[in-house]
C-alpha cells in the first residue's frame, strides 16, 4: 500500500482505528521493560542516582528534534507533493514535539542543579534547544490564529522548513562551541562511549518514548480529521439555515 492510498481520510481512519490499540500495547510493554531496566541500572560513579534523569531527558530531547523533523517532512508533503493528509500530520506533531522539548529543558534544568550547580546556563546546546521551543510556540501560534485550517497549515509548513535549519545546529552545537553541556557520547563517528549497562536501558526507553510519540501522533491526527469534519458540518448547517431564512 503506497502512501498515496492513505490520502483518503476515511481509509486512514480505519487503519488508525485498527492500529492504535496495538501501538498502545507495544508502548506500554516497552515502557514496562525500559523502566525496569532503567531503575535497575547502576549509579554513575560521579553523579550517583541523578544520572537516571538521563533516561527521561535524552529521549525527550531526541523526540523534540524528531518532532520538528517530522513536521518538516510533512511540510514537504503539503507544499511539494500536495498529499492531502500531510498538513494534518504536521499539525498533530507540533504540540507533541513542543511538549517533549519542554520536558527536555525542565528535566535538564533539574539535572543541572545538583551536577553543574546551576539551573540554567546560556551555552550553545541549551540555547539552541530553547530556540527550538520558541520555534514550536511560533508554529502553534500560526495554527491558533489562522481561521481557515488549510491556510494556517500551509503557512506553518513554510515555517517548519525554515526552522529545520536549527536541527543540525542543535546536534553539532556541543562540537562547534565550548559548552558546559557534555559533548556527543552516543551518536558519534567512533561509536558510543556510554557503558552498555546504561546505554541499553537508555535505548529501550528511547524506543518506548518513540512509540508513545507515534501513538499520540496518530490519535491526534484522527482527532484533527474528525475536528475538520465537525467544522465542515457546522458550516454546511449554517449555510442551510441561511438559505432557508433568505
Amino acid at each position, binding site marked *: 500500500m503506497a502512501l498515496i492510498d492513505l490520502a483518503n481520510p476515511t481509509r486512514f481512519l480505519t487503519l488508525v482505528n485498527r492500529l492504535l490499540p496495538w501501538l498502545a500495547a507495544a508502548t506500554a510493554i516497552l515502557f514496562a521493560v525500559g523502566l525496569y531496566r532503567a531503575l535497575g541500572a547502576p549509579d554513575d560513579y560521579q553523579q550517583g542516582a541523578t544520572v537516571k534523569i538521563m533516561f527521561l531527558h535524552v529521549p525527550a530531547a531526541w523526540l523534540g528534534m524528531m518532532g520538528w523533523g517530522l513536521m518538516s517532512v510533512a511540510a514537504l508533503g503539503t*507544499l511539494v507533493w500536495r498529499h492531502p493528509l500531510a498538513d494534518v500530520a504536521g499539525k498533530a506533531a507540533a504540540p507533541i514535539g513542543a511538549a517533549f522539548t519542554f520536558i527536555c529543558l525542565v528535566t535538564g534544568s533539574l539535572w543541572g542543579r545538583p551536577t553543574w550547580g546551576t539551573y540554567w546556563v546560556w551555552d550553545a546546546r541549551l540555547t539552541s534547544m530553547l530556540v527550538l521551543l520558541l520555534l514550536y510556540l*511560533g508554529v502553534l*501560534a500560526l495554527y491558533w490564529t489562522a481561521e481557515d485550517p488549510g491556510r*494556517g497549515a500551509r*503557512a506553518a509548513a513554510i515555517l517548519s522548513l525554515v526552522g529545520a535549519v536549527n536541527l543540525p545546529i542543535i546536534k553539532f552545537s556541543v562540537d562547534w562551541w565550548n559548552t558546559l553541556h557534555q559533548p556527543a557520547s552516543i551518536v558519534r563517528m567512533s561509536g558510543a562511549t556510554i557503558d552498555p549497562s546504561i546505554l541499553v536501558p537508555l535505548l529501550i526507553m528511547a524506543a518506548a518514548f518513540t512509540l508513545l510519540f507515534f501513538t499520540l501522533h496518530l490519535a491526534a491526527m484522527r482527532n484533527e480529521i474528525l475536528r475538520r469534519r465537525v467544522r465542515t458540518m457546522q458550516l454546511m448547517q449554517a449555510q442551510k439555515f441561511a438559505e432557508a431564512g433568505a
Partner: protein
Amino acid sequence: MSAFTAILTRDMRLSVRVGGGALMGALFFLIVVVMMPFAIGPDLNLLARIGPAVLWLGALLASLLALDRLFAVDHEDGSLDLLMMGSMPLELAILAKAIAHWLTTALPLVIIAPVLGLMLNVDLNAMGVVALTLLAGTPALTFIGLIGAALSVALRRGGLLLAVLVLPLTIPVLIFGVAAANAAIVGPAPFGPPFTILCALSLGSLVLGPIAAAAALRHGLE
C-alpha cells in the same frame, strides 16, 4: 526604468512620505535606548559594557515594528495581488520591497547609532565598530523578518504573531552582531570571525528570505 527599480523607488517614496517616514523607526530606536538607563541605572561603567548589546536590541525591536507595514498595506489595497499576478518573478519583487525597506527603515538606525552610543557611554573608538556591525547585520534582520511578515500578512493580530515568528530566527544575527561589537571594544577575541559570519548571515538571508517569503505569500493567500 526596469520593474525592479520601479518597485524599489515606489516603496522608498511610500515609506518616506507615509506614517512619519523614515524618522519614525529612528525615533523608536531613540526612545528604547533612552529607556534602558532608566531601568538599568546610571552607572556609566555598566552602561559602557552593555552599550553595544542595548544598541543591537533597540535596532532589532525598531526594525521588527516596521516590518508589519511591509506587506499588510499592499495586501489591503490590492497591489500585492497585482505583484503576485505580474510577469516579474515574485521573489524579485519582494527583494525590491525588502531593499527599499532596509534603505528607509534600517539605514537611519545605523546612522544615528553612534549618537545614541554617546548616551550609553560607549567608547568613542567603538562607536564606529558598532555602527559597522549594525550595517552588516540589519540586512539579515530585514530579510529574515520578510518571512514572518509574509506568513502573517493575512492573519489577525499580525503584529504580535510577526514578532513571535521572527525573533527566534534572528537570534543568531543578534549573537554574532554583539560578539563582533564586543570583540572590537573589549578584546581579546578576534573581530574577524563573528563579523564575517554576520556578513554571511546577511548574504544568505538576502537569497533565502525572498524565496521563503514568496512561497509564504503564494500559499497563504491562494
